[in-house]
Protein backbone atom coordinates (compact mmCIF):
# COMPACT_ATOMS: atom_id res chain seq x y z
CA UNK A 1 0.00 0.00 0.00
CA UNK A 2 2.83 2.40 0.99
CA UNK A 3 4.60 1.40 -2.21
CA UNK A 4 1.66 2.52 -4.35
CA UNK A 5 1.40 5.86 -2.48
CA UNK A 6 5.10 6.50 -3.08
CA UNK A 7 4.55 5.53 -6.70
CA UNK A 8 1.70 8.02 -7.10
CA UNK A 9 3.95 10.74 -5.63
CA UNK A 10 6.65 9.87 -8.13
CA UNK A 11 4.18 9.66 -10.99
CA UNK A 12 2.71 13.11 -10.36
CA UNK A 13 5.39 15.05 -12.30
CA UNK A 14 4.96 12.59 -15.17
CA UNK A 15 1.24 13.30 -15.27
CA UNK A 16 1.94 17.03 -15.07
CA UNK A 17 4.44 16.69 -17.90
CA UNK A 18 1.93 14.82 -20.01
CA UNK A 19 -0.66 17.52 -19.43
CA UNK A 20 1.93 20.16 -20.32
CA UNK A 21 2.81 18.43 -23.56
CA UNK A 22 -0.87 18.06 -24.41
CA UNK A 23 -1.23 21.81 -23.91
CA UNK A 24 1.81 22.48 -26.08
CA UNK A 25 0.52 20.36 -28.91
CA UNK A 26 -2.70 22.33 -28.79
CA UNK A 27 -0.58 25.46 -29.20
CA UNK A 28 1.28 23.92 -32.10
CA UNK A 29 -1.99 22.98 -33.77
CA UNK A 30 -3.04 26.60 -33.64
CA UNK A 31 0.29 27.82 -35.03
CA UNK A 32 0.43 25.30 -37.92
CA UNK A 33 1.91 26.55 -41.17
CA UNK A 34 -1.01 25.52 -43.38
CA UNK A 35 0.48 22.23 -44.52
CA UNK A 36 -0.95 18.79 -43.96
CA UNK A 37 -0.35 15.09 -43.50
CA UNK A 38 -2.10 12.70 -45.89
CA UNK A 39 -4.95 10.36 -45.13
CA UNK A 40 -4.05 6.68 -45.03
CA UNK A 41 -4.63 4.91 -48.35
CA UNK A 42 -7.82 2.94 -48.94
CA UNK A 43 -7.09 -0.72 -48.32
CA UNK A 44 -8.44 -4.15 -47.61
CA UNK A 45 -6.68 -6.98 -45.78
CA UNK A 46 -7.46 -10.61 -45.09
CA UNK A 47 -5.29 -12.58 -42.69
CA UNK A 48 -5.02 -16.12 -41.41
CA UNK A 49 -3.05 -16.26 -38.19
CA UNK A 50 -1.80 -19.14 -36.09
CA UNK A 51 0.16 -19.52 -32.88
CA UNK A 52 1.23 -22.99 -31.86
CA UNK A 53 3.41 -23.63 -28.86
CA UNK A 54 3.59 -25.43 -25.56
CA UNK A 55 0.38 -27.33 -26.15
CA UNK A 56 -1.68 -24.28 -27.04
CA UNK A 57 -2.98 -23.48 -30.51
CA UNK A 58 -4.67 -20.20 -31.30
CA UNK A 59 -5.67 -19.49 -34.87
CA UNK A 60 -8.28 -17.75 -36.92
CA UNK A 61 -9.12 -15.37 -39.71
CA UNK A 62 -9.17 -11.59 -39.63
CA UNK A 63 -10.44 -8.97 -42.07
CA UNK A 64 -9.87 -5.23 -42.30
CA UNK A 65 -11.34 -2.65 -44.65
CA UNK A 66 -10.37 1.01 -44.88
CA UNK A 67 -12.08 3.64 -47.03
CA UNK A 68 -11.80 7.39 -47.22
CA UNK A 69 -14.79 9.69 -47.54
CA UNK A 70 -14.64 12.99 -49.43
CA UNK A 71 -10.84 13.05 -49.03
CA UNK A 72 -11.36 14.21 -45.45
CA UNK A 73 -11.97 11.19 -43.26
CA UNK A 74 -10.65 7.64 -43.51
CA UNK A 75 -12.85 5.01 -41.88
CA UNK A 76 -11.77 1.49 -41.04
CA UNK A 77 -13.43 -1.58 -39.67
CA UNK A 78 -11.96 -4.92 -38.63
CA UNK A 79 -13.15 -8.36 -37.62
CA UNK A 80 -10.76 -10.70 -35.83
CA UNK A 81 -11.33 -14.25 -34.58
CA UNK A 82 -9.13 -16.22 -32.22
CA UNK A 83 -9.97 -19.88 -31.75
CA UNK A 84 -7.99 -21.22 -28.83
CA UNK A 85 -7.44 -24.86 -28.09
CA UNK A 86 -5.33 -25.26 -25.01
CA UNK A 87 -3.55 -28.23 -23.51
CA UNK A 88 -0.65 -26.18 -22.18
CA UNK A 89 1.40 -27.23 -19.18
CA UNK A 90 -0.48 -25.15 -16.62
CA UNK A 91 -3.82 -26.18 -18.06
CA UNK A 92 -2.90 -29.87 -18.12
CA UNK A 93 -1.37 -29.96 -14.66
CA UNK A 94 -4.06 -27.98 -12.89
CA UNK A 95 -7.20 -28.32 -15.01
CA UNK A 96 -8.34 -29.93 -18.23
CA UNK A 97 -7.81 -29.00 -21.91
CA UNK A 98 -10.33 -26.51 -23.28
CA UNK A 99 -11.47 -24.92 -26.50
CA UNK A 100 -12.64 -21.35 -26.76
CA UNK A 101 -13.38 -18.69 -29.35
CA UNK A 102 -12.74 -14.96 -29.04
CA UNK A 103 -14.23 -12.46 -31.48
CA UNK A 104 -13.03 -8.88 -31.77
CA UNK A 105 -14.53 -5.99 -33.71
CA UNK A 106 -12.58 -2.81 -34.27
CA UNK A 107 -13.30 0.50 -35.87
CA UNK A 108 -11.26 3.60 -36.61
CA UNK A 109 -11.72 7.08 -38.02
CA UNK A 110 -8.79 9.19 -39.20
CA UNK A 111 -9.18 12.89 -39.80
CA UNK A 112 -6.46 15.05 -41.28
CA UNK A 113 -6.41 18.80 -40.72
CA UNK A 114 -3.41 20.80 -41.92
CA UNK A 115 -0.38 19.52 -39.99
CA UNK A 116 -2.23 17.14 -37.74
CA UNK A 117 -3.91 13.79 -37.91
CA UNK A 118 -6.55 12.83 -35.38
CA UNK A 119 -7.43 9.15 -35.00
CA UNK A 120 -10.39 7.86 -33.07
CA UNK A 121 -10.47 4.11 -32.49
CA UNK A 122 -12.50 1.59 -30.63
CA UNK A 123 -12.68 -2.15 -30.14
CA UNK A 124 -14.94 -4.74 -28.64
CA UNK A 125 -13.64 -8.22 -27.79
CA UNK A 126 -15.89 -11.05 -26.63
CA UNK A 127 -15.25 -14.50 -25.33
CA UNK A 128 -17.55 -16.65 -23.19
CA UNK A 129 -15.97 -15.50 -19.93
CA UNK A 130 -14.34 -12.15 -20.78
CA UNK A 131 -15.43 -9.04 -22.62
CA UNK A 132 -13.18 -6.05 -23.27
CA UNK A 133 -14.14 -2.67 -24.69
CA UNK A 134 -11.79 0.18 -25.41
CA UNK A 135 -11.80 3.63 -26.98
CA UNK A 136 -8.73 5.53 -28.03
CA UNK A 137 -7.72 8.93 -29.33
CA UNK A 138 -4.41 9.62 -31.07
CA UNK A 139 -3.06 12.89 -32.38
CA UNK A 140 -0.06 13.19 -34.69
CA UNK A 141 1.45 16.58 -35.42
CA UNK A 142 4.14 17.39 -37.98
CA UNK A 143 6.59 20.10 -37.03
CA UNK A 144 9.95 21.42 -38.09
CA UNK A 145 9.39 21.33 -41.83
CA UNK A 146 7.78 17.92 -41.63
CA UNK A 147 10.97 16.34 -40.29
CA UNK A 148 9.58 15.72 -36.84
CA UNK A 149 6.28 14.08 -35.98
CA UNK A 150 4.97 14.28 -32.44
CA UNK A 151 2.32 11.82 -31.36
CA UNK A 152 0.05 11.73 -28.33
CA UNK A 153 -2.43 9.05 -27.53
CA UNK A 154 -4.92 8.00 -24.90
CA UNK A 155 -6.89 4.78 -24.61
CA UNK A 156 -9.45 3.82 -22.03
CA UNK A 157 -10.53 0.21 -21.59
CA UNK A 158 -13.22 -1.46 -19.53
CA UNK A 159 -13.42 -5.24 -19.16
CA UNK A 160 -15.91 -7.64 -17.61
CA UNK A 161 -14.33 -10.67 -16.03
CA UNK A 162 -16.23 -13.91 -15.75
CA UNK A 163 -15.84 -17.57 -15.00
CA UNK A 164 -17.45 -20.58 -16.61
CA UNK A 165 -20.39 -21.77 -14.61
CA UNK A 166 -20.51 -18.58 -12.55
CA UNK A 167 -20.92 -15.78 -15.07
CA UNK A 168 -19.42 -12.31 -14.89
CA UNK A 169 -18.35 -11.51 -11.36
CA UNK A 170 -15.89 -8.60 -11.57
CA UNK A 171 -14.41 -5.99 -13.87
CA UNK A 172 -11.11 -4.35 -14.83
CA UNK A 173 -10.31 -0.88 -16.11
CA UNK A 174 -7.31 0.26 -18.12
CA UNK A 175 -5.79 3.64 -18.99
CA UNK A 176 -3.03 4.06 -21.56
CA UNK A 177 -1.09 7.27 -22.19
CA UNK A 178 1.25 7.43 -25.17
CA UNK A 179 3.80 9.95 -26.30
CA UNK A 180 6.11 9.56 -29.29
CA UNK A 181 8.54 11.52 -31.42
CA UNK A 182 9.65 10.46 -34.87
CA UNK A 183 12.60 12.30 -36.36
CA UNK A 184 14.00 12.18 -39.87
CA UNK A 185 17.77 12.27 -39.50
CA UNK A 186 18.82 12.08 -43.15
CA UNK A 187 17.23 11.21 -46.52
CA UNK A 188 17.95 7.57 -45.61
CA UNK A 189 17.61 7.47 -41.84
CA UNK A 190 14.66 7.75 -39.51
CA UNK A 191 14.44 7.24 -35.75
CA UNK A 192 11.73 7.36 -33.13
CA UNK A 193 11.22 7.27 -29.39
CA UNK A 194 7.95 6.13 -27.83
CA UNK A 195 6.83 6.21 -24.25
CA UNK A 196 3.70 4.56 -22.89
CA UNK A 197 2.27 4.50 -19.39
CA UNK A 198 -0.44 1.94 -18.69
CA UNK A 199 -2.52 1.71 -15.53
CA UNK A 200 -4.87 -1.10 -14.64
CA UNK A 201 -7.34 -1.44 -11.85
CA UNK A 202 -9.75 -4.19 -10.90
CA UNK A 203 -9.55 -7.93 -11.29
CA UNK A 204 -6.20 -8.52 -13.00
CA UNK A 205 -5.73 -12.22 -12.44
CA UNK A 206 -7.44 -15.34 -13.74
CA UNK A 207 -10.13 -17.29 -11.84
CA UNK A 208 -8.76 -20.51 -13.33
CA UNK A 209 -5.12 -20.12 -12.34
CA UNK A 210 -3.68 -21.64 -9.21
CA UNK A 211 -0.59 -20.71 -7.25
CA UNK A 212 1.56 -23.07 -5.23
CA UNK A 213 2.22 -22.46 -1.55
CA UNK A 214 4.10 -25.14 0.42
CA UNK A 215 3.46 -27.50 -2.50
CA UNK A 216 -0.31 -27.10 -2.26
CA UNK A 217 -2.46 -25.55 -4.98
CA UNK A 218 -4.48 -22.50 -3.93
CA UNK A 219 -6.31 -19.91 -6.07
CA UNK A 220 -3.97 -17.08 -7.05
CA UNK A 221 -4.22 -13.63 -5.39
CA UNK A 222 -3.18 -10.77 -7.68
CA UNK A 223 -3.05 -7.05 -6.75
CA UNK A 224 -5.98 -5.00 -7.93
CA UNK A 225 -3.81 -2.21 -9.36
CA UNK A 226 -0.87 -2.12 -11.71
CA UNK A 227 1.02 0.77 -13.26
CA UNK A 228 3.57 0.20 -15.98
CA UNK A 229 5.91 2.26 -18.11
CA UNK A 230 7.61 1.36 -21.36
CA UNK A 231 10.16 3.28 -23.39
CA UNK A 232 11.07 2.15 -26.90
CA UNK A 233 13.71 3.45 -29.28
CA UNK A 234 13.50 2.49 -32.90
CA UNK A 235 15.47 3.27 -36.04
CA UNK A 236 15.48 2.33 -39.71
CA UNK A 237 18.22 2.98 -42.20
CA UNK A 238 18.13 2.57 -45.97
CA UNK A 239 21.34 0.94 -47.15
CA UNK A 240 21.21 2.16 -50.72
CA UNK A 241 20.92 -1.07 -52.73
CA UNK A 242 17.16 -1.60 -52.24
CA UNK A 243 17.64 -2.90 -48.72
CA UNK A 244 17.23 -1.50 -45.24
CA UNK A 245 18.17 -2.35 -41.69
CA UNK A 246 16.03 -1.87 -38.57
CA UNK A 247 16.79 -1.91 -34.87
CA UNK A 248 14.70 -1.36 -31.78
CA UNK A 249 15.04 -1.55 -28.02
CA UNK A 250 12.38 -1.31 -25.35
CA UNK A 251 12.72 -1.08 -21.58
CA UNK A 252 9.69 -1.90 -19.45
CA UNK A 253 9.12 -1.43 -15.73
CA UNK A 254 6.06 -1.54 -13.51
CA UNK A 255 4.74 -1.47 -9.97
CA UNK A 256 4.81 -5.25 -9.76
CA UNK A 257 8.63 -5.00 -9.83
CA UNK A 258 8.78 -6.54 -13.32
CA UNK A 259 11.62 -5.25 -15.47
CA UNK A 260 11.91 -6.35 -19.08
CA UNK A 261 14.25 -5.72 -22.00
CA UNK A 262 13.32 -6.25 -25.63
CA UNK A 263 15.77 -5.90 -28.49
CA UNK A 264 15.05 -6.57 -32.13
CA UNK A 265 17.14 -6.42 -35.29
CA UNK A 266 15.68 -6.62 -38.75
CA UNK A 267 16.84 -6.61 -42.36
CA UNK A 268 14.64 -5.99 -45.41
CA UNK A 269 15.49 -6.44 -49.04
CA UNK A 270 13.83 -6.25 -52.43
CA UNK A 271 14.34 -9.10 -54.87
CA UNK A 272 13.50 -8.00 -58.38
CA UNK A 273 10.42 -5.88 -58.94
CA UNK A 274 7.88 -8.05 -57.19
CA UNK A 275 9.42 -9.64 -54.09
CA UNK A 276 10.22 -8.14 -50.70
CA UNK A 277 11.77 -10.23 -47.92
CA UNK A 278 12.40 -9.42 -44.24
CA UNK A 279 14.28 -11.28 -41.56
CA UNK A 280 14.33 -10.43 -37.86
CA UNK A 281 15.85 -11.55 -34.60
CA UNK A 282 14.26 -10.71 -31.26
CA UNK A 283 15.69 -11.04 -27.78
CA UNK A 284 13.46 -10.73 -24.74
CA UNK A 285 14.18 -11.05 -21.05
CA UNK A 286 12.17 -10.22 -17.96
CA UNK A 287 12.48 -10.39 -14.19
CA UNK A 288 9.66 -11.90 -12.18
CA UNK A 289 6.89 -9.98 -10.45
CA UNK A 290 7.25 -9.27 -6.73
CA UNK A 291 4.51 -11.70 -5.75
CA UNK A 292 5.39 -14.41 -8.25
CA UNK A 293 6.65 -17.68 -6.90
CA UNK A 294 6.99 -21.12 -8.39
CA UNK A 295 6.45 -22.68 -4.95
CA UNK A 296 6.05 -20.17 -2.16
CA UNK A 297 7.66 -21.01 1.15
CA UNK A 298 5.72 -18.35 3.07
CA UNK A 299 2.23 -16.94 3.13
CA UNK A 300 1.93 -13.50 1.50
CA UNK A 301 -0.93 -11.14 0.65
CA UNK A 302 -0.43 -11.69 -3.09
CA UNK A 303 0.75 -14.87 -4.73
CA UNK A 304 0.77 -16.05 -8.32
CA UNK A 305 2.34 -18.81 -10.39
CA UNK A 306 1.45 -17.19 -13.71
CA UNK A 307 4.22 -18.06 -16.18
CA UNK A 308 3.73 -14.69 -17.82
CA UNK A 309 5.04 -13.02 -14.63
CA UNK A 310 8.04 -15.27 -14.06
CA UNK A 311 11.71 -14.72 -14.87
CA UNK A 312 12.37 -15.88 -18.38
CA UNK A 313 13.98 -15.01 -21.66
CA UNK A 314 13.08 -15.75 -25.24
CA UNK A 315 14.74 -15.66 -28.62
CA UNK A 316 12.69 -15.32 -31.77
CA UNK A 317 13.86 -15.70 -35.33
CA UNK A 318 11.45 -14.85 -38.09
CA UNK A 319 11.05 -14.08 -41.74
CA UNK A 320 8.48 -12.36 -43.91
CA UNK A 321 7.95 -12.58 -47.65
CA UNK A 322 5.75 -10.31 -49.72
CA UNK A 323 4.83 -10.87 -53.36
CA UNK A 324 3.24 -8.14 -55.46
CA UNK A 325 0.62 -10.12 -57.30
CA UNK A 326 -1.01 -7.33 -59.28
CA UNK A 327 0.11 -3.74 -59.59
CA UNK A 328 -1.44 -0.92 -61.62
CA UNK A 329 0.56 2.20 -60.68
CA UNK A 330 -1.70 4.96 -59.49
CA UNK A 331 -4.71 2.67 -59.29
CA UNK A 332 -4.30 -0.38 -57.06
CA UNK A 333 -1.84 -2.93 -55.75
CA UNK A 334 -2.45 -6.44 -54.40
CA UNK A 335 0.15 -8.27 -52.36
CA UNK A 336 0.34 -11.79 -50.96
CA UNK A 337 2.30 -12.04 -47.71
CA UNK A 338 3.59 -14.82 -45.51
CA UNK A 339 5.41 -14.55 -42.20
CA UNK A 340 6.81 -17.18 -39.88
CA UNK A 341 8.52 -16.88 -36.52
CA UNK A 342 10.09 -19.51 -34.27
CA UNK A 343 10.34 -18.47 -30.61
CA UNK A 344 12.15 -20.34 -27.88
CA UNK A 345 11.14 -19.55 -24.30
CA UNK A 346 13.35 -20.52 -21.36
CA UNK A 347 11.80 -20.07 -17.91
CA UNK A 348 14.18 -19.63 -15.01
CA UNK A 349 11.80 -19.95 -12.06
CA UNK A 350 8.89 -21.99 -13.35
CA UNK A 351 9.17 -25.74 -13.04
CA UNK A 352 7.42 -28.23 -15.21
CA UNK A 353 6.00 -30.49 -12.50
CA UNK A 354 5.77 -33.33 -14.99
CA UNK A 355 9.55 -33.45 -15.40
CA UNK A 356 10.86 -31.53 -12.37
CA UNK A 357 13.15 -29.24 -14.34
CA UNK A 358 12.66 -25.63 -15.40
CA UNK A 359 10.17 -25.25 -18.19
CA UNK A 360 10.97 -24.27 -21.75
CA UNK A 361 8.91 -24.27 -24.91
CA UNK A 362 9.17 -23.60 -28.62
CA UNK A 363 6.43 -21.66 -30.32
CA UNK A 364 5.55 -21.21 -33.98
CA UNK A 365 3.80 -18.11 -35.24
CA UNK A 366 2.42 -18.11 -38.76
CA UNK A 367 0.68 -15.34 -40.67
CA UNK A 368 -0.67 -15.61 -44.21
CA UNK A 369 -2.36 -12.58 -45.69
CA UNK A 370 -3.50 -10.74 -48.78
CA UNK A 371 -3.33 -6.96 -48.70
CA UNK A 372 -4.69 -4.57 -51.29
CA UNK A 373 -4.35 -0.80 -51.51
CA UNK A 374 -6.47 1.24 -53.93
Amino acid at each position, binding site marked *: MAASKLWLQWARPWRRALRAVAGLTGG*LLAASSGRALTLPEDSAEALFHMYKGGGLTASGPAVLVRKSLADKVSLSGSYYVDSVSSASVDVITTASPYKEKRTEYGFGADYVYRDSQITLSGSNSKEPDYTANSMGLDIAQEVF*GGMTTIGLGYTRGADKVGQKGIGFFDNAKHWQYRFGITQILSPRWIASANFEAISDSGYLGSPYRVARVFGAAIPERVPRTRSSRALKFRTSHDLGSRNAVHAEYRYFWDTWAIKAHTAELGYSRYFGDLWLADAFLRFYSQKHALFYSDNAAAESLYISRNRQLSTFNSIGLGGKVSYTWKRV*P*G*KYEIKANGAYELVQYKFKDYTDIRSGGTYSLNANVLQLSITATF
Partner: protein
Amino acid sequence: MSLQTKPVAVTRRVMLGAALAACASIALPAVTPAMVAPDFTLRTMSGPNLRLQEQRGQVVLVNFWATWCGPCRQEIPHLNRLYDKYRTSGFQLLGVNIDDDARAATELATRLGVKFPVLLDTDKKASRLYDMSAMPATVVIDRDGRVRYVHRGYRDGFEKTYEQQIRELLKE
Protein backbone atom coordinates in the same frame (compact mmCIF):
# COMPACT_ATOMS: atom_id res chain seq x y z
CA MET B 1 7.32 22.55 -1.28
CA SER B 2 4.57 22.23 -3.90
CA LEU B 3 3.45 25.84 -3.31
CA GLN B 4 6.96 27.11 -4.01
CA THR B 5 7.30 25.24 -7.29
CA LYS B 6 3.95 26.27 -8.79
CA PRO B 7 4.82 29.66 -10.39
CA VAL B 8 8.25 28.35 -11.54
CA ALA B 9 6.63 25.30 -13.14
CA VAL B 10 4.14 27.51 -15.04
CA THR B 11 6.89 29.82 -16.37
CA ARG B 12 8.94 26.81 -17.43
CA ARG B 13 5.99 25.39 -19.34
CA VAL B 14 5.31 28.69 -21.08
CA MET B 15 8.96 29.02 -22.12
CA LEU B 16 9.02 25.45 -23.39
CA GLY B 17 5.89 26.16 -25.40
CA ALA B 18 7.36 29.31 -26.89
CA ALA B 19 10.56 27.49 -27.84
CA LEU B 20 8.66 24.67 -29.52
CA ALA B 21 6.44 27.17 -31.32
CA ALA B 22 9.56 28.90 -32.64
CA CYS B 23 10.68 25.55 -34.04
CA ALA B 24 7.39 25.07 -35.84
CA SER B 25 7.82 28.35 -37.72
CA ILE B 26 7.78 28.43 -41.53
CA ALA B 27 11.06 28.41 -43.43
CA LEU B 28 11.30 31.35 -45.85
CA PRO B 29 10.54 30.10 -49.37
CA ALA B 30 13.06 30.49 -52.19
CA VAL B 31 10.41 31.32 -54.77
CA THR B 32 7.92 34.09 -54.05
CA PRO B 33 5.29 35.82 -56.15
CA ALA B 34 6.52 38.80 -58.25
CA MET B 35 10.04 37.45 -58.72
CA VAL B 36 11.28 36.10 -62.05
CA ALA B 37 10.86 32.34 -62.26
CA PRO B 38 14.31 30.68 -62.06
CA ASP B 39 15.22 29.16 -65.40
CA PHE B 40 16.02 25.49 -65.89
CA THR B 41 16.60 23.04 -68.75
CA LEU B 42 15.59 19.41 -68.30
CA ARG B 43 15.23 16.32 -70.44
CA THR B 44 11.64 15.36 -71.25
CA MET B 45 10.20 11.87 -71.01
CA SER B 46 10.04 11.66 -74.81
CA GLY B 47 13.72 12.60 -75.28
CA PRO B 48 14.53 16.22 -76.23
CA ASN B 49 15.42 18.93 -73.70
CA LEU B 50 12.99 21.63 -72.70
CA ARG B 51 13.88 25.07 -71.32
CA LEU B 52 11.55 27.11 -69.13
CA GLN B 53 12.59 30.45 -70.62
CA GLU B 54 11.50 29.31 -74.10
CA GLN B 55 7.92 29.25 -72.79
CA ARG B 56 7.88 33.07 -72.42
CA GLY B 57 4.74 34.51 -73.94
CA GLN B 58 2.67 31.67 -72.59
CA VAL B 59 1.12 31.16 -69.17
CA VAL B 60 3.04 28.30 -67.57
CA LEU B 61 2.07 26.02 -64.70
CA VAL B 62 5.03 24.08 -63.32
CA ASN B 63 4.10 21.12 -61.15
CA PHE B 64 6.70 19.19 -59.11
CA TRP B 65 5.60 15.59 -58.51
CA ALA B 66 6.89 12.10 -57.67
CA THR B 67 5.57 8.55 -58.07
CA TRP B 68 5.91 7.88 -54.35
CA CYS B 69 3.66 10.76 -53.38
CA GLY B 70 -0.06 9.97 -53.10
CA PRO B 71 -1.48 13.48 -53.52
CA CYS B 72 0.78 13.99 -56.59
CA ARG B 73 -0.84 10.98 -58.29
CA GLN B 74 -4.30 12.25 -57.37
CA GLU B 75 -3.55 15.65 -58.89
CA ILE B 76 -2.31 14.43 -62.30
CA PRO B 77 -5.69 13.66 -63.93
CA HIS B 78 -6.84 17.19 -62.99
CA LEU B 79 -3.71 18.72 -64.52
CA ASN B 80 -4.30 16.64 -67.64
CA ARG B 81 -7.78 18.06 -67.94
CA LEU B 82 -6.53 21.64 -67.53
CA TYR B 83 -3.82 21.09 -70.14
CA ASP B 84 -6.34 19.74 -72.65
CA LYS B 85 -8.70 22.63 -72.06
CA TYR B 86 -6.30 25.59 -72.30
CA ARG B 87 -3.28 24.45 -74.37
CA THR B 88 -4.58 26.12 -77.51
CA SER B 89 -5.16 29.43 -75.67
CA GLY B 90 -1.47 30.01 -74.89
CA PHE B 91 -1.11 27.77 -71.83
CA GLN B 92 1.76 25.38 -71.15
CA LEU B 93 1.89 22.82 -68.34
CA LEU B 94 5.21 21.31 -67.29
CA GLY B 95 5.32 18.33 -64.96
CA VAL B 96 8.72 18.11 -63.28
CA ASN B 97 9.25 14.62 -61.89
CA ILE B 98 11.78 14.19 -59.09
CA ASP B 99 12.03 10.40 -58.83
CA ASP B 100 15.48 8.85 -58.50
CA ASP B 101 14.38 6.28 -61.08
CA ALA B 102 13.16 7.89 -64.32
CA ARG B 103 11.73 4.55 -65.45
CA ALA B 104 9.15 4.51 -62.65
CA ALA B 105 8.10 8.05 -63.57
CA THR B 106 7.74 7.18 -67.27
CA GLU B 107 5.71 4.08 -66.44
CA LEU B 108 3.30 5.91 -64.15
CA ALA B 109 2.92 8.87 -66.53
CA THR B 110 2.09 6.52 -69.41
CA ARG B 111 -0.40 4.58 -67.25
CA LEU B 112 -2.18 7.76 -66.20
CA GLY B 113 -2.30 8.95 -69.81
CA VAL B 114 -0.35 12.14 -69.19
CA LYS B 115 -0.47 14.45 -72.22
CA PHE B 116 1.58 17.40 -70.93
CA PRO B 117 5.39 17.32 -71.11
CA VAL B 118 7.01 15.43 -68.23
CA LEU B 119 10.49 16.71 -67.37
CA LEU B 120 12.88 14.42 -65.51
CA ASP B 121 14.78 16.04 -62.64
CA THR B 122 16.58 13.00 -61.21
CA ASP B 123 19.50 15.04 -59.79
CA LYS B 124 17.07 17.51 -58.21
CA LYS B 125 18.59 20.59 -59.95
CA ALA B 126 15.28 22.36 -60.56
CA SER B 127 13.88 21.25 -57.18
CA ARG B 128 16.80 22.84 -55.35
CA LEU B 129 16.41 26.00 -57.46
CA TYR B 130 12.77 26.32 -56.52
CA ASP B 131 13.28 24.87 -53.00
CA MET B 132 9.64 23.94 -52.64
CA SER B 133 8.67 23.18 -49.05
CA ALA B 134 6.04 20.60 -49.86
CA MET B 135 5.19 17.80 -52.23
CA PRO B 136 3.51 18.27 -54.66
CA ALA B 137 4.30 21.91 -55.42
CA THR B 138 2.78 24.07 -58.12
CA VAL B 139 4.05 27.38 -59.47
CA VAL B 140 1.92 29.50 -61.84
CA ILE B 141 4.02 31.78 -64.07
CA ASP B 142 2.64 34.61 -66.25
CA ARG B 143 3.53 35.50 -69.84
CA ASP B 144 6.48 37.68 -68.72
CA GLY B 145 8.11 34.82 -66.86
CA ARG B 146 7.19 36.13 -63.42
CA VAL B 147 5.98 33.85 -60.60
CA ARG B 148 2.41 34.80 -59.73
CA TYR B 149 1.08 32.02 -57.52
CA VAL B 150 2.70 29.28 -55.45
CA HIS B 151 0.77 26.28 -54.16
CA ARG B 152 2.08 23.86 -51.61
CA GLY B 153 0.59 20.40 -51.48
CA TYR B 154 -2.61 19.23 -53.11
CA ARG B 155 -6.05 18.79 -51.67
CA ASP B 156 -9.45 18.28 -53.28
CA GLY B 157 -10.52 21.54 -54.89
CA PHE B 158 -7.07 22.96 -55.61
CA GLU B 159 -7.61 22.33 -59.33
CA LYS B 160 -10.48 24.84 -59.29
CA THR B 161 -8.10 27.48 -57.94
CA TYR B 162 -5.53 26.58 -60.61
CA GLU B 163 -8.18 27.01 -63.31
CA GLN B 164 -9.26 30.40 -61.91
CA GLN B 165 -5.66 31.64 -61.85
CA ILE B 166 -4.89 30.33 -65.36
CA ARG B 167 -7.94 32.06 -66.81
CA GLU B 168 -7.00 35.30 -65.04
CA LEU B 169 -3.45 35.20 -66.42
CA LEU B 170 -4.57 34.26 -69.92
CA LYS B 171 -6.74 37.37 -70.02
CA GLU B 172 -3.75 39.65 -69.41
